[in-house]
């Protein structure tokens, strides 16, 4: 054995070293399947990180240019696939802004109810997945059980558990079912119970709190300049929720709060999402009370709304209208518009350019988690390797939206 060099402090040897490169590849359990992070490590500390996305780029914007305005709805569903109704509603509102339409009250309440159910499903998935990636499998299964209840309601309403394609320009595909109120009133308290059980399991656990508290903090001003919106921004203390700041549908007529965090770390992002589930429950309950139980669900503008099947089979005008709407698309007036709503991750914007025909000229989606993941490098540089997992989980990167 060579003698130790006793002139070094603490008996440390100066060894030649170079940083280690580690690839957290695109197929990784905690990377939500589609993000690659190339890390340069010095021990366990990350010195540099390169976040590479684009492994789920599916050409949403190019596909929209090949169909009609109504054929975009299935593509839009698959953007943020954990809360598809919010995307449907956002896109429908954008096209209606361009057409200058306003939908009936019943449809607005219905959109709010389904949108908030989707938001609950989104936050349950995000918090459950975060817990699972830190080793807490049980709360994940409980939250998935709660999510199944939400999906049961959505399946009863729209016909599909996920990716409903239920929105239409000028309304929704079908009116609410007669069971909606009873289903929601029986499911929502049960969902809240499950969320509370999950919280009791997690938020008193020393290990869980140590892994989340103080990890990945970002200040409000930094988050804003990075383009963050949504729960991640609100966890840093900035009070910006589009439902309150620029209300759309009927959000200004109901009463709900917006949870705001203080320190902008991972624990705050986790807690803000759990708080939003409770607020969504309030919104749904109030909307169910206020929604009229009969009335039209689509506005009656024949330029965009399909006629009823009875008319299509019996009158020639309705047949022609149906034919033109399906084959050529709704003729949206020429122009450009940017319309934004509060989706599960933040400001989901659609910038539409129309050339007056039935096919979109350009549909640009402003994905909220694209900007948020752009800030990931900032959050993990200088921290431990194992902090990547909760930090990345708290950002709720949804591949379909980030890579559109």
């Amino acid at each position: 054995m060579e003698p130790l060099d006793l002139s070094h402090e603490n008996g440390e040897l100066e060894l030649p070293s170079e940083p280690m490169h580690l690839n957290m590849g695109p197929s990784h359990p905690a990377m939500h399947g589609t993000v690659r992070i190339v890390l340069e490590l010095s021990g366990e500390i990350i010195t540099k990180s390169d976040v590479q996305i684009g492994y789920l780029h599916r050409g949403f914007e190019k596909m929209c240019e090949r169909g009609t305005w109504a054929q975009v709805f299935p593509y839009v569903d698959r953007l943020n696939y954990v809360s598809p109704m919010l995307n449907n509603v956002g896109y429908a509102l954008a096209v209606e802004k361009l057409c200058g339409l306003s939908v009936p009250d019943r449809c607005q309440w219905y959109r709010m109810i389904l949108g908030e159910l989707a938001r609950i499903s989104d936050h349950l998935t995000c918090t459950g997945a975060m817990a699972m990636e830190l080793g807490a499998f049980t709360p994940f299964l409980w939250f998935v059980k709660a999510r199944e209840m939400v999906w049961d309601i959505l399946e009863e309403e729209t016909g599909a558990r996920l990716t409903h394609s239920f929105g239409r320009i000028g309304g929704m595909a079908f009116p609410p079912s007669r069971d909606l109120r009873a289903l929601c009133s029986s499911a929502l308290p049960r969902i809240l119970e499950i969320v509370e059980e999950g919280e009791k399991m997690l938020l008193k656990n020393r290990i869980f709190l140590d892994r989340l508290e103080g990890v990945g903090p970002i200040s409000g001003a930094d988050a804003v300049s990075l383009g963050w919106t949504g729960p991640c921004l609100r966890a840093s203390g900035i009070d910006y929720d589009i439902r309150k700041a620029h209300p759309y549908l009927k959000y200004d007529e109901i009463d709900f709060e917006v949870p705001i965090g203080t320190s902008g770390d991972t624990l705050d992002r986790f807690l803000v999402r759990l708080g939003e589930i409770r607020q969504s429950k309030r919104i749904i309950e109030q909307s169910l009370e206020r929604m009229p139980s009969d009335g039209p669900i689509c506005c009656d503008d024949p330029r965009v709304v399909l006629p009823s099947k009875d008319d299509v089979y019996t009158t020639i005008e309705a047949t022609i209208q149906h034919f033109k709407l399906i084959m050529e698309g709704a003729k949206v007036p020429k122009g450009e518009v940017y319309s934004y709503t509060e989706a599960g991750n933040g400001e989901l914007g659609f910038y539409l350019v129309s050339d007056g025909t039935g096919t979109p000229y350009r549909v640009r989606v402003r994905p909220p988690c694209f900007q948020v993941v752009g800030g990931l490098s900032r959050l993990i540089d200088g921290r431990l390797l194992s902090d990547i997992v909760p930090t990345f989980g708290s950002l709720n990167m949804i591949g379909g939206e980030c890579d559109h």
Partner: protein
Amino acid sequence: MSQMVLERLRERFGAAILETHSDFGDDTAIVDPSAWREIATYLCNDPALEFNLPVDLCGVDYPDSWNGPSSTARTGRMEVVLHLYSIGKRHRIRMKTRVGGEAMEGAELDSLTDVWPGLNWLEREVFDMSGVTFRGHPDLRRILMYPEFEGHPLQRTYPAGKTQPLVPYRTEASAGMPIDKLEPFGEFEGMPFGRRPDPTAAGVG
């Protein structure tokens, strides 16, 4: 509210602001590409305007004779559109400019990453999808497509179905069974009339 923003821009920059309008409730300013960075810095730093949230940056391609939704003719093929929002003042603005010749030559703009760091990835995306280069960007490389990809997919001249596979596909010989799917439709079937190229008629869509 945002009319105030447009007026301030017109007062201060005069000729660099080519046009402003507020169609559909969105306030838009069309600017000269050489003044892009100066106007953006003004919008971010001026205390009365305070546009601190970079919402979106995208490119829209106008290669054909249709010049876009605004009425005035513009030169330049690719329109770069920047949306900004002010969290304190709660107003929005859209800033647009046109760059690039017919074959996208000279499609360059100044990068705004030091004004708003959030535009880093958005500028990379515009470069990747539309082919506009940003002078001064710290790390301009493809973000959504792979580095071996050639071309810029969201340009309208890029065919939607043209793949550039990285892994060669299996053939029937190597697989021992047919693996090509049946084509259910012709190439343009299912596309609406407006977008389908009609070989007999001139000037469709």
